């Protein structure tokens, strides 16, 4: 689809801007947030590599972004990104993953990358469902949700991916929703500039698959407004009880730790030590 209106972010695209996502999908808002963050940092796009997995989130950078893009198997994007970052530490490596990539099939890679504090930025599109494959329950789907594989309601409790990242040792963690596109962009900027493993969880609307689950089918506007209503900033949430926080989405920059050894720096140190022997 030829875009006749010159979009300021068009320069970051491999050809025309043409996301084939469903109407109202959060992907495009997140894509813009990533690109606006990069635009504001004014880093050369060629110095950034994107790695993505399988699921709708994988199509944010691939093939659209006009830089090095590696689109890999489901759940393994962080593992491929680790190899790439270790081989090319001069590059900024950004992973676009889904909640399935991060919390289900690739959970192991996710926690270990956080533990290693490798300098990757993971932007996790958390839509609470397996969207592309037809609305199956995800590890992030709220308890008792009716999905295509939980017709009686889901009986498992969901993961809090940000807390998981924090527990695993991530040194920069932020959570926003697509309603908070500006704050999201600001946190992505910080994450890219952060030395160490940064994790950005974005609660994002899937109006087609998750919309059904919460009675907002094909209604992205209601979903965004729902996020607005449910969101509580971390600074406010600190003073709220668990009861008050029930069904709320805690947003904000949850963790920022500096001066924790980063993996590629540690490897450089080992090389120096090995060469002295």
């Amino acid at each position, binding site marked *: 689809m030829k875009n006749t209106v010159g979009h300021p972010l068009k320069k970051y695209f*491999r*050809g025309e801007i043409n996301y084939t996502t469903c109407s109202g999908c959060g992907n495009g808002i997140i894509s813009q947030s990533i690109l606006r963050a990069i635009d504001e940092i004014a880093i050369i796009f*060629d*110095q950034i*590599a994107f*790695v993505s997995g399988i699921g709708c989130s994988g199509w944010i950078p*691939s*093939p659209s972004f*006009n*830089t*090095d*893009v*590696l*689109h*890999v*198997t489901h759940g*393994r994007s962080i*593992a*491929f*990104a*680790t*190899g*790439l*970052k*270790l*081989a*090319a530490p*001069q*590059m900024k490596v950004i992973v676009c993953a889904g909640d399935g990539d991060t919390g289900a099939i690739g959970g*192991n*890679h996710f926690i*270990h990358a956080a533990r290693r504090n490798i300098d990757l930025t993971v932007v996790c599109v958390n839509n609470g469902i397996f969207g592309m494959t037809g609305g199956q329950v995800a590890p992030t789907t709220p308890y008792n949700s009716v999905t295509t594989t939980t017709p009686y309601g889901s009986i498992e409790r969901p993961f809090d991916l940000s807390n998981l990242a924090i527990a695993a040792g991530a040194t920069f963690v932020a959570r926003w929703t697509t309603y908070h596109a500006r704050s999201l962009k600001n946190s992505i900027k910080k994450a890219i500039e952060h030395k160490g493993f940064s994790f950005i969880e974005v609660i994002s609307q899937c109006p087609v698959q998750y919309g059904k689950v919460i009675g907002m089918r094909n209604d992205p506007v209601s979903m965004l407004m729902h996020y607005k209503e449910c969101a509580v900033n971390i600074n406010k949430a600190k003073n709220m009880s668990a009861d008050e926080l029930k069904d709320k989405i805690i947003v904000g920059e949850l963790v920022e730790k500096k001066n924790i050894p980063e993996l590629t720096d540690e*490897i450089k140190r*080992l*090389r120096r*030590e*090995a*060469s002295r*022997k």
Partner: protein
Amino acid sequence: MKNKKNIERKTDFIQGNIACAEGAIAAGCNFFAGYPITPASEIAHYMSRKMFEVEGTFIQTEDELAAIANIVGASWGGNKSMTATSGPGISLMLENIGLAVVTETPCVIVNVQRGGPSTGSPSVAFQGDMLQPKFGSHGEYQIIALAPSSPQEMFDFTVEAFNKAEKYRIPVFILADSLIGHMRERVDFPLDDEIILEERKKLKNYQGIHQKIFLDENVAPMPIFGEGLKANITGSTHKEDGFRNVSDPKIMDTAIKRLSNKILKHKEDIIAVEEKYLEDAEVAIFSYGLVYRAVLETVNIARNQGLKVGSFRPITIWPFPQEQVEELSKKVKTIIVCENNLGQIYPFVKAAANGNAKIIFLPPKILGALYKQEEILNKIKEVIS
């Protein structure tokens, strides 16, 4: 790219696994990722020290899925990368081995085979994973796999594996087993200038969004990340420029055929076999890897007894040396296939022979235990008489 200079001729008495690691270093390997597993762990032990000495990277990953993903990622980052594991690890890696094939990523995967299926017998030598590299990942693809039979060959074939991986942009397997991996034997290290290394064909300049970086039967140039080449890499069916197209069967047809032909059209360069005493042989023994040692010994003895027997040994298991076996089947009356398994390569020998010769399968009496000489010798005598 060389890691260090070998200017003095060196000989050592080392384990197969260490020889493999030394071969990798001699070939310029500068990235190793792996997960501990018997009987391959010694390779990781050695690399965990050596990689840093050669300005390289060693990482012990969270699992084998990450190990293969790491080496593919590192390869796109411009490193020469490798992992080493055993059958259970390969089983875990298979999906991403398919990704490495379809993204045409050079890397080396060492399988020091052990008894299987499942956890199996970790320290028993077995040739049970011979089909796994070729058929383990889903879909239709070609692969390169080499079967060493000694620590010396663990060194030599690992160098060769890197060369073939770089030249053809493909994962190359070393199919060893626990005995080859743990066997200590004399290894002669070549001098630096005796090692000829293949250089990766790299894309030099960005040539637009439709630049041809895949699906060339003569190997397309690889756009290394970080050099402004805007690499567009996906595991989905794609065209030469990397753009995916998953709806048009013609695109899939082209992709699969070109990916396969990239290897099949260069079989002459890729395939290596070793033939002994075949000029006047009535019987040939087909064997590879560890088993080849017992076979060669037996053939020597049989020759001393005046028996017209020879040995045919594929060094390259995949692509299978179909034409060479067919040629052999026209020369001899019988081919005895010796494998330390229940006949994994045997059907390929039979198919290649296509009725020209009688094909007999002779497994060891006890799988995992080496052939007793008389097991093979008696069969030779039985066939010849």
